[in-house]
């Protein structure tokens, strides 16, 4: 009973979001709940052009994909490099990376803003991707280093005897064994990068480099009453991640929980 009630309470706002995206303006006033009197599919086509979803959706996909790939790979390399305690600086560097989790974004956002301008990256997608890669590292190192440490060192020595270089050992031996951790890290970082609002609000306010969450906000200012268009954009920004979640429910739940508990 409780579970049904809780599930319904969770689903009503989600269903409401989808319904609202098909409503016309008179519908919002005359018919606050219930199905749209007239299914306004053109909310979506208009959101695509007028709310610039045609720009913000590809931007969000590119930014999330590049940042997740870059951050996960670099974190895996670091984890492999630091996985033996007796190595020089291993513990120091590990602590150094992980302490990045404590740094609040507000403290670094303005110097970052200036730095990116200085590099001439301002207004490009790289202005989001590069900081995201760096910001994703602490969690990646935190999750992956213990997994890399638990790989028996005999496996590495055996590969070495077979003549493999360190890089080959990383690719052929360590990376496959890190795979469950890599999935967790990719999901953890992917979800926040896709949904991140504060950083792009500051760094990516030029229309051509906006991501979905910021795009919706800036659109609100212009057409404050066009709720149908706003919700079409909200649905478009939510559907990809929800679909990914439904396909990999277990990985999302365990990955996010692992990150939350350790973080």
């Amino acid at each position, binding site marked *: 009973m409780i579970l049904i009630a809780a599930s319904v309470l*969770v689903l009503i706002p989600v269903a409401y979001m989808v319904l609202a995206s098909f409503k016309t303006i008179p519908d919002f006033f005359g018919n606050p709940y219930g199905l749209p009197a007239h299914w306004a599919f053109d909310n979506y086509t208009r959101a695509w052009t007028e709310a610039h979803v045609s720009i913000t959706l590809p931007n969000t996909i590119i930014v999330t994909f590049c940042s997740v790939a870059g951050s996960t790979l670099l974190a895996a390399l670091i984890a492999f490099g630091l996985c033996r305690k007796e190595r020089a600086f291993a513990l120091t560097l590990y602590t150094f990376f992980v302490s*990045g989790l404590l740094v609040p974004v507000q*403290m670094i956002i303005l*110097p970052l803003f200036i730095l990116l301008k200085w590099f001439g990256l301002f207004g490009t997608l790289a202005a989001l991707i590069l900081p995201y890669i760096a910001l994703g590292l602490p969690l990646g190192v935190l999750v992956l280093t213990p997994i890399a440490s638990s790989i028996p060192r005999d496996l590495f020595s055996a590969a070495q005897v077979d003549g493999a270089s360190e890089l080959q050992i990383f690719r052929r031996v360590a990376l496959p064994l890190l795979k469950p951790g890599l999935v967790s890290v990719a999901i953890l970082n992917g979800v926040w990068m896709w949904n991140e609002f504060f950083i792009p609000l500051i760094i990516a306010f030029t229309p051509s480099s906006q991501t979905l969450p910021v795009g919706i906000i800036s659109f609100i200012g212009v057409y404050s009453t066009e709720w149908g268009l706003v919700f079409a954009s909200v649905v478009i920004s939510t559907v990809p*991640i929800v679909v990914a*979640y439904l396909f990999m429910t277990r990985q999302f739940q365990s990955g996010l929980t692992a990150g939350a508990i350790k973080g």
Partner: protein
Amino acid sequence: MLAQSRQWDGRGGRRRRQSALARRYGHLLFVAPGFVFFIAFMVLPSLAGFAVSLTNWTGVGTDFSFVGLDNFVEALGSWPLYRAAWHNLIMFLAILVFQHTVGLFVAVQLHAKPRFMEVYRTILFLPVIISLVSTGFIWTLMLSPNIGVINALLKDLGLGFLARAWLSDPDLALATVIGVQCWNVLGWAIIIYLAGLQAIPEELLQAAEIDGATGWVRFRRVVFPLLSPSFTALTVLTFIGQFRVFDIVYVLTGPLGSPNFETDVLATLIYRSAFGGSSIASNDVRMSYAVALAVIVFVIMAIASTFLIRVLRRREISA
């Protein structure tokens, strides 16, 4: 030096004869790319941020001078900082109670393995995946006094006297923001507690039953103490989340934390000090002051979360 050791590493690896240098520092080559990113986009900006907080720089132009700790003194003596921190604290405590009661209760229900357990689990965790911006928009519309579904529903149920201007009533706005967040974060409590419940060995529960502990007594004396790690994790997660909360407040009540700053939190205060809100004159916008606020919040949060983890861990051990 670095380039040389890279060469050594490549050749030496194949011949299984590494130089002493490569053997000792070769692993650092794997760390180097990430290290460069980390230094460039996290460490340098953090240090620069701290340096800026010691000046009177407004954020534009090159006209500024060193003012020492003036920004910190001013921030710590300013009323809005305490008001915002107070709102963060209320949000934290309210959501903490919600997570440890409602969240735990739902997790216990799920742990009893009802039919469709997987379906419930999938649904109940769903809001965690949905962004706070989307959550904010959904609830802005649902709670709207004119076109929102909630007031309309109350009226049609004959409960029209309960209809409120949820987000603009000074007495209700903060509670409403908390309520919306509860919808978004419940999934965390369920998943974290469920993992804790599943980790409890069956024999322990049977032993308790043999000793005559059943129902509530068994839960209170046996199960709940064993859930301490989940309790700690959820408490720390809620603490960090609630003292950093920004997106949902920005969308629901704006960067001013309206009405009349009733929902103003630390992050919106910092944002406003750095970038301005709609009703703040531009000469009030001071980047250096905003960064000083961020540094203060960072220091307090670091101390508080260390303290929190230590206290809760001790409780885990003694439990």
